[in-house]
């Protein structure tokens, strides 16, 4: 009977994976083309490179303090590059130089035990006084293994990169999902492809964008460090950094699924707050855990195995050499399993609540078989 349909366009049935790729492609293209995305990415990259170069220029400039010296130059001054020494004939000439602002301070001989005095206008330059002072050698019998501030900064760094990337993409996934429900296009989409392909495509597309953006920022940072000749800082990070990237990718998919499933529960943008907050908590609590309990080995060990905090906690522990070689593997396996479970649950919630319009669908209803 269908043979009389002569002008039929040739179609092949799209499998779930093909549909997933197509949905992901649209997701990526529609975001990459938006002005807001382009502008914010360019600004972020410029800030990262600019910030590194600027801080290196400002921080790297060696401050030389101009001083005037009457008579012989003390040994401490002679081999220091921090001082620009001007010879002055006598005390009054030196004072004249200080008053005119040509030098910051002058060393004049006097009858004291030290042998000279510092003459300055309002206050003596710190560097000068400490260069002339004698401080005793400090010897620690039990030095702390790692410096507290560095630990805090590394944890903050990993945590901030992960949290910002994940929250940004999570919000986008949520917005796009709710928008599809709100504009009702979802009914047409569901008539064409299964709900799991829609969900998977969304997660895949946004993960590519999120991971891609993070990679671009990392590349920009590396470029900045290379330009300013601080490349050795990168070598220091390498192994934990690679693990961070691996954990980042899986952790990202995990959080993206949570956000997509949450978004499927509501049908209007105004209602997203109610499901957004619990999803954000899942991301932020482990992050703050790592920041606040960074120096508590017990808490950190636990956090490095909890799937939501592992992407930050495990690389931090590895950075400080506290984790055995097999620990990241087990933690990663847990993360992958958790991701698989969340994706499954999310796709169930997604399928069951996508066509429900109006009030928010309760989690229990959404999980029930339709």
């Amino acid at each position, binding site marked *: 009977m269908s043979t009389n349909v002569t002008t039929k366009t040739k179609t092949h049935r799209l499998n779930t994976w093909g549909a997933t790729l*197509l949905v992901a492609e649209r997701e990526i293209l*529609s975001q990459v083309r938006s002005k807001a995305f382009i502008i914010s990415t360019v600004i972020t990259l410029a800030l990262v490179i600019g910030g590194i170069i600027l801080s290196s220029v400002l921080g790297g400039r060696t401050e030389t303090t101009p001083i005037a010296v009457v008579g012989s130059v003390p040994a401490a001054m002679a081999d220091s590059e921090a001082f620009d020494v001007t010879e002055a004939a006598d005390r009054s000439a030196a004072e004249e130089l200080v008053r005119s602002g040509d030098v910051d301070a002058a060393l004049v001989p006097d009858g004291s035990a030290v042998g000279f005095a510092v003459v300055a206008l309002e206050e003596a330059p710190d560097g000068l006084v400490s260069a002339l002072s004698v401080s005793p050698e400090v010897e620690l019998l039990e030095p702390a293994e790692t410096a507290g501030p560095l630990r805090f900064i590394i944890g903050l760094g990993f945590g901030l990169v992960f949290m910002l990337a994940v929250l940004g993409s999570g919000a986008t996934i949520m917005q796009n999902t709710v928008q599809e429900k709100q*504009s*009702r296009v979802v009914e047409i989409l569901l008539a064409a492809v299964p709900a799991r392909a829609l969900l998977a495509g969304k997660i895949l597309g946004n993960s590519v964008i999120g991971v891609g953006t993070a990679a671009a920022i990392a590349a920009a940072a590396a470029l900045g460090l290379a330009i300013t000749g601080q490349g050795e800082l990168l070598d220091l990070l390498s192994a934990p950094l690679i693990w961070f990237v691996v954990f980042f990718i899986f952790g990202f998919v995990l959080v993206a699924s949570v956000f997509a499933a949450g978004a499927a529960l509501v049908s209007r943008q105004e209602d997203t707050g109610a499901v957004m907050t619990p999803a954000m908590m899942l991301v932020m609590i482990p992050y703050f855990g790592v920041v606040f309990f960074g120096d508590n080995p017990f808490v950190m060990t636990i956090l490095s195995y909890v799937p939501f905090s592992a992407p930050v906690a495990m690389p931090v522990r590895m950075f400080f050499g506290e984790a055995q070689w097999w620990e990241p593997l087990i933690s990663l396996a847990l993360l992958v399993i958790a991701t698989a479970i969340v994706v499954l649950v999310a796709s169930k919630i997604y399928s069951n609540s996508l066509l429900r319009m109006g009030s928010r669908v309760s989690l229990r209803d959404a999980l029930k078989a339709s």
Partner: protein
Amino acid sequence: MLSVRNLSRSFGNRLVVDDVSFDVGRGRLTGFVGGNGAGKTTTMRMILGVLKPDLGEVLLDDAPVGESALHGFGYMPEERGLYPKMEIGEQLAYLARLHGIDKTTATQRADDLLERLGLIERRRDKLEALSLGNQQRVQVAAALVHDPDVLIMDEPFSGLDPLAVDEVVTVIAEHAARGVPVLFSSHQLEVVERLCDDLVIIANGKVRAAGEREALREQHSGNRWALEISGDAGWVRGIPGVTVAELAGTTVLFDAESGAADAVLRSAVERGTVTSFRPVRPTLGEIFRDIVVDASAADEQNKREGAAA
């Protein structure tokens, strides 16, 4: 032929679709008519596989409709919706590709359809930049862009001006002529009457009448006749067995058994020139009102009896 067999679906305790069966023939436009909340949209969603039926099945040419057959279905949902911020050409091509059409063909088909619907100049415009009527045309195009094997349209004409209705009707009729079963619902009964070959009337989740349009009209016509003659028609009142419903100078509308009607015609011919004489068939609107009113009265009755028992 698309066959709907014993579909039932309830939401909570409410039985929304109750044992619905009907056929949509190839090459035939089938109108799906019912009041608000009669179960049209739920039935259509079940045909599309968007919603799972509690009971019953959908067959295409006697084979159960599975995922692969569903791929060839075209759907225009009642709740209109596309991506507001996506260019319409690209959007249509994307929807075609979701149905498994390769990119080049999909773009070609999207352009062809936009051309047909007079929107080709605006193919790079975002949907939200179009007027509501034009957005509606794009929505129609979205249902047709993958050259569907079966076309299901929920209220395709709502929100269209008469000119746009004609355009859309032409496009849909073309698909039907190619042997595609077309099922569409509408509140605009005069459009349905003009357009469809077959009818399915649904009320309170049950099919109340189904079949060919003319057969249905025949079936629901009473014994009403219209007569137009050259002189005054007042004499018709005097014929035994005739009840005059309406008399206006030379035309008269009356109810009579066919014997009495023959008598009227005979005496009309004797009295002068007969301009026209014909049985009056009810319009779709009249049939619909009869059926729906009857149905709700019967349901009320059932409920009362049920409550009493």
